[in-house]
């Protein structure tokens, strides 16, 4: 029903990287084959045990997480997780994260022959980058990285960003490097303090903030970027909990809509959204809801 970068998606709803794990557990609760796509949790060159608990903090209409990219590392991922994902009748997106350009290149090499449809470069890992500047907020690093990655990748490359001041410059760098699409938004930083103990609840002080609270920020970000990049494929996400949210994201400019925290709140949310969206689309053509920003309303 949706086609981007030559790949057909049965519907525009995909699982975002992270909150949905690598599929096996979630598949006990919903039929993953109904999804438009499934993004695996970011995998890194070596195993990461993740951050010490607590890792989840509830805040108003949202959660803070400090998972710390816990993952088995690429080799165990290929051994234990990828085979299951490859059996699914849905589009798999592989999210990869590293500290250096070489990390990304070696990850791509190892995953190039999988049946995944896209790679997603997660440039928002807290510990990634040079001179303390994360790859994801440095135009030159982004350009270099994407250019090298494109040379060897057999699949379209998506780059995932958070909300940044000069985001359109960063995205231009990615696009100039050859990026096929972008993913917006990764979780902004959020914090909660235990006022009785007088310390931040998360040991690192702050964590990633997701859920319905960030939806207006995600929409504004996507809308603004869509105005500048009329044809760039965008995977939009941030607080999508029902089909109306999904429609808002599509109208703001997203081609695909990712569900992150929603699937944590209730694993059945993605399926509910797909069904409700189907009903909605029986009256509306998909093209009709594409999109506020592109159509130029109030731009």
């Amino acid at each position, binding site marked *: 029903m949706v086609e981007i970068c030559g790949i057909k998606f049965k519907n525009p709803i995909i699982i975002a990287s992270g909150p949905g794990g690598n599929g096996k557990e979630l598949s006990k609760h919903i039929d993953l084959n109904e999804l438009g796509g499934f993004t695996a949790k970011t995998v890194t060159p070596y195993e990461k045990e993740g951050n010490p*608990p607590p890792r989840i903090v509830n805040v108003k209409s949202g959660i803070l997480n400090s998972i710390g990219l816990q993952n088995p590392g690429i080799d165990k991922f290929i051994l234990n997780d990828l085979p299951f994902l490859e059996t699914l009748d849905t589009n798999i997106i592989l999210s990869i994260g590293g500290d250096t350009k070489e990390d990304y290149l070696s990850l791509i090499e190892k995953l190039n022959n999988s049946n995944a449809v896209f790679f997603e470069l997660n440039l928002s890992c807290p510990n990634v980058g040079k001179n303390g500047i994360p790859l994801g907020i440095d135009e030159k690093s982004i350009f270099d990285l994407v250019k090298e990655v494109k040379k060897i990748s057999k699949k379209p490359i998506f780059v995932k960003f958070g909300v940044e001041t000069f985001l359109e410059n960063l995205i231009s760098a990615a696009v100039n490097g050859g990026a096929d699409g972008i993913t917006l938004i990764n979780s902004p930083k959020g914090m909660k303090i235990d006022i009785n103990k007088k310390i931040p609840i998360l040991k690192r002080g702050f964590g990633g903030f997701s859920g319905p609270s960030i939806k207006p920020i995600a929409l504004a970000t996507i809308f603004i970027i869509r105005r500048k990049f009329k044809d760039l494929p965008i995977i939009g996400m941030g607080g999508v909990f029902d089909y109306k949210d999904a429609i808002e994201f599509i109208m703001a400019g997203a081609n695909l809509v990712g569900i992150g925290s929603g*699937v944590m709140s209730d*694993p059945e949310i993605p399926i509910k959204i797909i069904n409700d969206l189907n009903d909605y689309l029986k009256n509306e053509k998909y093209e009709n809801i594409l999109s506020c920003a592109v159509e130029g309303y109030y731009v």
Partner: protein
Amino acid sequence: MNAIVKEIETTDNYILLTIETEEILNIEPGQFVMLKPKYFDFPKPFSVIYQEDKIIKFLIAIVGEMTAELKKLKINDELDIRGAYGIPFIKKIDKNKKYILLGGDCGSAPLIHFSNKYPDLIKEKIYGFVTPEIQKILNIEGLHIDSIEGMNLLEKAEKLEISEDTAILICGSLNLIKHTKNKFKNKKLYASLEARMGCGIGICKGCPIKTNDGIKMICKDGPIFDLSEVQLEW
């Protein structure tokens, strides 16, 4: 799934909540559910003290935002519930032993559920609360009220006599668990652990515990663990 409040009894710090679910959720002792008032976006984990058909009972301590909201529930108010999650106690424990149940505060909930369903496995029940307040809503055998007994649960635990065929099953504060583990180093000890949870089903990696076999998720691989297999400190 939808559920509605059938009965709610409260004291200053506790709630005994009875709900009726839309359909039957079969809950084994030790399993938990993810629960939330309709207007919350994310649910939180709660053990079950009783379940039969569509009726489920909870014993909840009021400690923060959501539990304070739960206290305000009225009959016929709606909740969202999903579950049951986690491994039932009975699937992990050694069934050849008799159990001393050591519950700290509302950690007693799953132990009460367990003792009702498996009375033959029980040697002793100790459900510890600091003040007699809990008696207003909970009238069961095994209540240990610090202020009445003149000693707290840690002191009580210290005094336990454990024979070869006896094991302890703890659910309570980390302090209680550590203390007991320390005291009974060579005994069979199980604990039902708690953590702030996101999903409750093992997908988000939000509730880790270090074990001899690597990092596990309390929601999926627990909440009950043999204390010899986990490291309580990170």
